């Protein structure tokens, strides 16, 4: 794939620099090019959060081969961990020292809590295979959501369906991300500064994933995916390595969730429905399971396409029918669903599969035609 012709380190460095420049000026370009550049920037911020989620799920599904349909629960755990400690809701109940912890502490705490829930989910499901695991993880996701929805009584912890409001923004290096920041004569709006903050975490997670992939741990994950019994017989403690995959994947979700809560300023159980888990899975599979660039591509496509359609759908309708015939919201999701089916039918291995996966599929095709 694309990486193959970037043979020399120089070429690669050039590409990385170009990419960095593009990413650095992206918010300004969006603001300059589009009338509604601000809402586009928000969409990009969310796409970055989804990239983190997709990379986290990729560890569980793509590397370790465990089908998880409740992944969004870890996003929820991260988001609520942040929200509860950074909003007025629990102020009266919690001791003062617990409220508004420093940002770094907060992120580590969110990752830890999500990782803990990952282990909690992983432990009873270790023996389950394939689709049994899928339904249990799905159930786990729903349990978390329903609990968030109902834990407003007898003691009001999560504030139920209303969700938590007034979540404070990130304070880092003496900067308040909740207000426009002036720097070098430029003004960074909330969405701007959050863009760079989320981008930084995104880069960190990509880095961690890359390192893990090329390590003893990463190889053990893939070995379990390939053949669990053989992995066992080779001395891999499959229980611990699987739990580690659940915990690592979940902690990425937790970080993303914490950033989501602070960026949005509001969380409610509605953000963590089953469909969200399904969408993150689609990102991983559509992009190319187990391949980091593929997963990133999948996350961008799945999160941005509906936004693109949102802008394009009404002009399209008037062009075709001369007036608004269909509800644009439904029509865009319909087109999105059709696009998902079409991509999978045309490229069952995903848009940007890892080299080895591509080899595998095309061999199958040869077998089929032979």
């Amino acid at each position, binding site marked *: 794939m694309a990486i193959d012709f970037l043979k020399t380190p120089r070429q690669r460095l050039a590409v990385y620099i170009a990419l960095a420049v593009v990413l650095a000026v992206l918010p300004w370009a969006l603001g300059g090019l589009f009338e509604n550049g601000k809402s586009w920037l928000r969409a990009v911020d969310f796409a970055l959060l989804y990239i983190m989620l997709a990379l986290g799920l990729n560890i569980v599904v793509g590397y370790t081969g465990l089908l998880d349909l409740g992944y969004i629960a870890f996003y929820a755990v991260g988001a609520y961990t942040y929200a509860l400690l950074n909003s007025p809701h629990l102020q009266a109940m919690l001791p003062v020292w617990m409220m508004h912890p420093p940002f770094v502490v907060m992120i580590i705490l969110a990752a830890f809590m999500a990782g803990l829930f990952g282990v909690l989910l992983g432990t009873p499901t270790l023996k389950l295979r394939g689709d049994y695991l899928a339904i249990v993880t799905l159930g786990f996701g729903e349990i978390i959501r329903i609990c968030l929805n109902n834990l407003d009584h007898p003691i009001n912890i999560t504030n139920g369906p209303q969700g938590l409001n007034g979540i404070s923004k990130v304070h880092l290096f003496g900067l308040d991300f909740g207000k426009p920041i002036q720097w070098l004569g430029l003004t960074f709006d909330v969405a701007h500064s959050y863009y760079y903050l989320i981008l930084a975490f995104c880069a960190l997670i990509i*880095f961690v994933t890359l390192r893990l992939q*090329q*390590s003893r741990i990463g190889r053990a994950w893939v070995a379990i995916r390939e053949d669990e019994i053989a*992995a*066992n*017989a080779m001395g891999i403690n499959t229980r611990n390595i699987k739990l580690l995959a659940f915990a690592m994947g979940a902690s990425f979700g937790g970080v993303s969730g914490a950033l989501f809560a602070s960026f949005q300023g509001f969380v409610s159980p509605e953000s963590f429905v089953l469909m969200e888990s399904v969408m993150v899975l689609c990102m991983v599979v559509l992009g190319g399971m187990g391949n980091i660039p593929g997963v990133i591509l999948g996350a961008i496509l799945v999160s941005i396409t509906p936004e693109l359609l949102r802008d394009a759908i009404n002009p399209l309708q008037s062009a075709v029918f001369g007036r608004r015939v269909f509800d644009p919201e439904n029509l865009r999701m319909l087109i999105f669903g059709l696009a998902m089916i079409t991509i999978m039918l045309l490229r069952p291995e995903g848009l940007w599969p890892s080299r*080895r996966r591509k080899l*595998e599929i095309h*061999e199958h095709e040869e077998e089929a035609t032979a």
Partner: protein
Amino acid sequence: MNAPQQLLAIEGIHKRFGGLHALNDVTLSINKGEIYGLIGPNGAGKTTLFNVLTGLYLPDEGKFNFDGKNLFRQKPYVVVESGIARTFQNIRLFHNMTALENVMVGQHVRTKAGVIGAVFRNPSAKAEEATIKARAEELLDYVGIGKRKNELARNLSYGDQRRLEIARALATKPILLALDEPAAGMNPNETAALKTLMEKIRSDGVTILLIEHDVKLMMGLCDRIAVLDYGKKIAEGVPEQVKNDPRVIEAYLGVAPE
């Protein structure tokens, strides 16, 4: 000559699957440095015994000692750590990993870098990773498929896949290497090469436990042979002795010799 030193000893092992008594009171011992053969008709319980010895099946009763450790009903990774490694009758490689990666996975149990080491690549983790890679290449050369190291396991020829499985098992630094029908499906040339490889492995100090149908190969290779039939050990001894045992002939031919 030194008296043979006992390496593995199982005593009165039973394994039942529902109504099937797959292993019935099996007792045997393997000495350090020997090639120990296990033969028997299909369904005699050879592979079941293998799975018990490598921790994949938990035996119902009996004793299982290896190299001074009690491995009765232990987890597979403990068994591997104690020094027993295996191959599979129906080749179970990590098909979509390269030959090199397969052998690198084999070293999992002898290495220890965790998440921290992986992410920060501190000097010790880096050194360990380099050692893993170097040793994997060494082992691939040792079994004779060094040139294929970057091919996916699934794309290797049948004989090479068998060799790769052996290399992967050797990567765990075993004291006892258990091979389940390594010559199955091989042509005479490949079988001869395999025999040479097994002798080399033994001369390098690894004890071998071998299941094989190729009786000629077994007679020429093994120091001692045990015969299983219907989950019971019916004979044990040096090849000549076993070959002429009437119970063995009966088990294989279905009738007692005249």
